């Protein structure tokens, strides 16, 4: 394990604790004097209020981190809701733009600066996937490589999933559908997310059951169970869930052209294929690039395993706003 991976594990453990138990650790509300324009949305009236309680944001930090534990666990003091949750909820409740836009702007800014750095270094679901990989490795079991065509399909599928979630949220906001149908489609992303099942265990809570008593619920629950099994298949297929995560899909839109860039010295590269082999996302871009320096791409979660294991000095570099932060080295 190289230096970068060691550092990454350290960051992962800390952020896991902060994100999953942060609500308990930081009981007091987090005030944000630094960000005066971002205010926690207040209570407001909206149609459908009688069906489900509307959003009650009390903390600013609550709302824009891409993944936090679910709103269903509010009482336990965990941080609440990933950004996708916020997005879909805001659309559903038709949150006024003056509450919604600052958060969106802040999130997009974070995306621009960090890109999918989130996925590789901070995301607790990603960390659990990594732990599953570590367990498998210590048992001496091999990992499974997905067929290339399938992998390419998955890369596209995550965008379909993202647009599906946003579209459904929009559909609920339009008061045409019957209320019974709408009620069952609330926050579809969360209904399908494996985090819904996984995080409660860490927080010491029983996860909410997957409901099957209506066609809509059955649809979402079966998708949810499918994604849950995909998440646990991460034991054999490294970071399987991350390959289709809709939240990751949203962030990945900012991965190319963001502040963090991954660069490759194509002449120094010996095409040894190490970068492709170690990539948990089965990303071939770094290996296959032979002309351009910039090898950032949407599928990369910036875990930097490729940079860490590249045996050519200075061949792979990671830059933040043009400043070199990591580079490859022969060990």
């Amino acid at each position, binding site marked *: 394990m190289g230096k970068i991976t060691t550092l990454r594990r350290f960051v992962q453990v800390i952020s896991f604790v902060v994100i999953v138990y942060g609500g308990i650790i930081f009981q007091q509300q987090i005030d944000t004097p630094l960000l005066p324009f971002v205010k926690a949305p207040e209570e407001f009236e909206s149609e459908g209020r009688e069906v489900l309680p509307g959003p009650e944001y009390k903390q600013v930090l609550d709302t824009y981190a891409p993944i936090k534990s679910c709103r269903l666990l509010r009482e336990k003091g965990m941080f609440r809701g990933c950004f996708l949750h916020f997005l879909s909820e805001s659309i559903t409740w038709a949150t006024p733009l003056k509450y919604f836009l600052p958060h969106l702007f802040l999130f997009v800014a974070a995306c621009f600066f960090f890109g999918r750095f989130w996925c590789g270094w901070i995301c607790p679901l990603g960390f659990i996937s990594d732990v599953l990989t570590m367990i498998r490795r210590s048992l001496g*079991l*091999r990992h499974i490589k997905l067929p290339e065509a399938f992998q390419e399909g998955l890369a596209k599928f995550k965008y379909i999933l993202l647009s599906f979630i946003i579209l459904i949220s929009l559909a609920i906001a339009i008061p045409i559908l019957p209320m019974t149908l709408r009620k069952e489609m609330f926050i579809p992303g969360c209904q399908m997310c494996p985090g819904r099942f996984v995080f409660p265990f860490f927080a010491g809570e029983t996860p909410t059951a997957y409901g099957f008593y209506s066609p809509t619920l059955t649809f979402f629950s079966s998708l949810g169970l499918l994604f849950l099994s995909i998440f646990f298949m991460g034991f054999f297929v490294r970071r399987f869930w991350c390959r289709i995560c809709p939240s990751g899909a949203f962030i990945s839109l900012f991965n190319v052209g963001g502040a963090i860039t991954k660069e490759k010295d194509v002449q*120094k590269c010996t095409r040894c*294929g190490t970068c492709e082999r170690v990539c948990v996302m089965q990303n071939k871009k770094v290996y296959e690039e032979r002309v351009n320096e910039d090898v950032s791409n949407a599928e990369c979660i910036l875990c930097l395993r490729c940079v860490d294991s590249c045996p050519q000095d200075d061949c792979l570099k990671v830059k933040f706003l043009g400043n070199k932060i990591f580079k490859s080295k022969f060990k």
Partner: protein
Amino acid sequence: MLQKIREFIKSLYETGYEEEAKRKYGIRKILREEKEGELERRLLEEGERNFRLMKKTPRPKGMKYYDDVIKGKRIKEIESFDGMVIGYFCNLVPEELIYASGALPVRLCSGFYDTINVSEELLPKDICPLIKSSFGFTVSNLPYSKFCNLIVIPTSCDGKKKLAEVLSNYLPVWTLDLPNTKSTKSKESWFVEVKILKKKIEKLTGAKITNKKLKESIELLHKRTQVFRRFYELRKKSVVTGSDALLVVQTSFYDDINRWIQKTEELCDELEENENKSDVRLLLTGSPIIWPNYKLLNIIEEHALIVVDELCSGTQHLYDPVVVDEYTTNGMLKAMAERYFSPSTCPCFTSSDDRIDRLLQMVDDFKVHGVIYYVLRLCQLYDLEAQKVRQILKGKRIPMIKIQTDYSQEDVEQIRTRIEAFLEMTKTKKKL
């Protein structure tokens, strides 16, 4: 049922590979035209001649060890080594596997002129001298071929492919089916090939290659790569001649690996203090140059310095490390298969891009003034790539000379004249 499936899978693995191991027509008689010990004597003589020529420039003290090994100090050790000795050709055979099985790997590529006569009685005249020489080594029962229990040959160039067949009349030979491209499909088939090799070696030695052993041997060879990289970095300061550097690499073909690592470490310590003695800095690339055929090196280094080489019998043999991702059996085998296959700059692969990039990087790293492109006569693959390399180097304003020769000493003066003219030109260009 399960048994049947298992057998079926096993049969899939073994079809077509078992054949080579069987010596269908029995072992042919070992040819010996010359007197007993005549070839050995000639080999030593040839070596001594090389040493005399190399001595014109002062050599580091640490080189004495390598001289001794190449002269034959190692022969006695291997003779008394009890265990399997596995010979191989090319730098594409995973040595880690051989070390992990407890056997001893020996690279058999040969640069000895006199054995060519022996093999020409059995092989056609118009094939590459390396093949003829190596075949002659085995046929005339010279070290190190004579200790080999098995020979592993990757099907790289045409010569090597057929060498596998002719050699299989004398010794058990296994071929590794080397794909022609570096596509994903090829990588997978090469990986299967390495897996089969593992099974075969296990069967031969009777010892199972466990994960632990494999990991140990990978770590051992990684140490060797580390030492070599240190040596390689030192060469940037042009502290050692090209022939000495090549000798260092080529002793690793035979030598006890731990001792080699230790001695090379010592040599590096010595070289740290060596002074810069470069005048015209050259890069040597092309067909393999193997002891004792240091003809070209000796001619060049009368006047200039080869700071770096890109030969498969030189830098390429030790440069690339095995980077293991996961220490599972599969992970290690994959890392190993990839190390020997993917970064290979062998012209047997359809594309020469990797090789050209490697050359350009060397030109940049070592601040080279000129490139010597060595083509072994009748080695079409290297010959075919020469034109592209020349054009690209021309774009970088680096002069290149192509020298086409074989193992004989006939054309020494001719080559000398050409090299001298080339060096003159390079010097003028350097001043400009």
